[in-house]
C-alpha cells in the first residue's frame, strides 16, 4: 500500500477513541483504495487524499460531537463561579495575611508587607482558578446537568415583578467574605484554642477557654457557618428575594444564633482562672453573657424583620402604580 495512505489513515485514527481505531482504519483504507480505482500513482493518491480533507477534520466527523474543556452550556455558570471564588478567596487571603503579619514576631517594612500580601493573594487566586476549572472540566466531561431547574414562564413573571426586591451583590459577597474569614478563625480556634487569652508581661497567658471542652462545640459551629455561607451563595445566584429564599436565610440565621447562644451558655468551656482575673463572680459573668445573647437576638430579629419587610411588603405591588399613565 502507498506510504501516504498509511500515514493519512494513522493520522486520522490517532484522534479517535482507542476502541474505534482498528475498525475505522480498515474501513477508511478500503474506501481510499476504492476511490483510487487501482491507480496507485503518487499523483492520484495525493489527489484523493486532498479530496478527503485534513485528517483532523475527518476525525472530528467520525467523533460526531465537538469536544470542549468547558462546554458552551456551562460557560456562563463557570464565569460566575470563577468571579465569586476569586473575589472571596482574594479578599480572605488578603485579610488573613495582614492579620497574621501583625502577630508575626519580627518587624517588617511596609514594602515587604505589601509584596507578601500580593504574593499570597496571587498564589491563592491561581490555585482557586485551577480548582474551579478542573471541577468544571470534569463536570463537562461527564455531562453533568447544570441547569438547576427547568425554565418556565413562571421564572419570567417573577423577574418582571419589582426591582426593589433585588439582593445587593455587595451584600452577598460581603457575607461570603465575612463568613470565610470567620471560618478560618474557627479553624484556628479548633487547632489552637489557647491563643485566645489574656497576655500579660512576665506571666504565662491565661486562656479564655478550656480546650478539650470547647473543641467538640466548634465543629458544630463550623457546620452552621458553612450552612450560612451556602445561603449567601444562593442569594448571590438568585439576586432576588423570594419566599423560600427568605425562609432559608432566616432559618440559617436563627440556627446560627441558637447555636451561638447554646455554646456561650455551656459554662464548663470557660476557664475559671480567666474569670478570676476580673473582679466579678461567676453569677455576674453569666448575666453579662446572657445579656450579650439577648442583644444579639434582638439584632438578628431586626435584620430578619427588615428582610421580611422587603420580601412580603413588596411582593404584591400596588396594581394602580403599575398601570401606565393615561
Amino acid at each position, binding site marked *: 500500500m502507498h506510504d501516504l495512505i498509511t500515514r493519512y489513515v494513522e493520522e486520522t485514527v490517532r484522534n479517535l477513541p482507542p476502541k474505534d481505531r482498528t475498525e*475505522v482504519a*480498515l*474501513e477508511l483504507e*478500503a474506501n481510499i*483504495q*476504492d476511490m483510487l480505482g487501482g491507480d496507485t500513482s503518487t499523483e492520484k493518491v495525493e489527489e484523493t487524499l486532498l479530496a478527503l*480533507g485534513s485528517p483532523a477534520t*475527518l476525525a472530528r466527523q*467520525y467523533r460526531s460531537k465537538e469536544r470542549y474543556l468547558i462546554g458552551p452550556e456551562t460557560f456562563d455558570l463557570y464565569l460566575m463561579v470563577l468571579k465569586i471564588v476569586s473575589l472571596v478567596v482574594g479578599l480572605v487571603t488578603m485579610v488573613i495575611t495582614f492579620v497574621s503579619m501583625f502577630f508575626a514576631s519580627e518587624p517588617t517594612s511596609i514594602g515587604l508587607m505589601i509584596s507578601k500580601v500580593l504574593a499570597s493573594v496571587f498564589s491563592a487566586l491561581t490555585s482557586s482558578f485551577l480548582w474551579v476549572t478542573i471541577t468544571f472540566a470534569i463536570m463537562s466531561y461527564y455531562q453533568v446537568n447544570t441547569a438547576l431547574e427547568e425554565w418556565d414562564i413562571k421564572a419570567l413573571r417573577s423577574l418582571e415583578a419589582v426591582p426593589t426586591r433585588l439582593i445587593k451583590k455587595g451584600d452577598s459577597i460581603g457575607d461570603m467574605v465575612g463568613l470565610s474569614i470567620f471560618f478560618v478563625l474557627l479553624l484556628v480556634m479548633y487547632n489552637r484554642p489557647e491563643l485566645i487569652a489574656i497576655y500579660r508581661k512576665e506571666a504565662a497567658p491565661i486562656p479564655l477557654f478550656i480546650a478539650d471542652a470547647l473543641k467538640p462545640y466548634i465543629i458544630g459551629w463550623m457546620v452552621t457557618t458553612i450552612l450560612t455561607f451556602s445561603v449567601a451563595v444562593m442569594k448571590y445566584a438568585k439576586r432576588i428575594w423570594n419566599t423560600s429564599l427568605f425562609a432559608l436565610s432566616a432559618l440559617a440565621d436563627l440556627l446560627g444564633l441558637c447555636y451561638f447562644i447554646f455554646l456561650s451558655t455551656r459554662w464548663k468551656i470557660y476557664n475559671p482562672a480567666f474569670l478570676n482575673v476580673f473582679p466579678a463572680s461567676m453569677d455576674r459573668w453569666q448575666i453579662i453573657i446572657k445579656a450579650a445573647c439577648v442583644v444579639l437576638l434582638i439584632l438578628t430579629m431586626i435584620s430578619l424583620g427588615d428582610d421580611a419587610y422587603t420580601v412580603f411588603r413588596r411582593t404584591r405591588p400596588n396594581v394602580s402604580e403599575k398601570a401606565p399613565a393615561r
Partner: protein
Amino acid sequence: MCVLSQLEEKQYGYSLLQVLCDKHIAIEANTLYPLLRRLETQGLLESSWDTTEARPRKFYSLSSKGRTILGELATAWREQNTHINALLGEESYA
C-alpha cells in the same frame, strides 16, 4: 435520508457514493464515510465485512429500525415539501 433510501440493498462506502452521485445527490466522501459509521452506531444500519474479494470491504444495509425511521422521515419530508410548494405557488416563481 438520502443515504438511508439507497441502502435497501447492501452497499460499501465508495459504491454508495457513486450511486448517490449518479442520482444528482452530491455528497463528499469525507462526509459520507463518517456518516455511515454514525448511522450504524445509532442502530439505523447494519454492517458486515465481505472478505471474499481481493480487498475486504465493509457493506452497509438498512436495519429494521432504520427502515422505520426512513419511512417517518420520508413522510415528514413530503409534507414539508407540499407546504413549501404551496408557498412558492402563491407567487409566480416557477
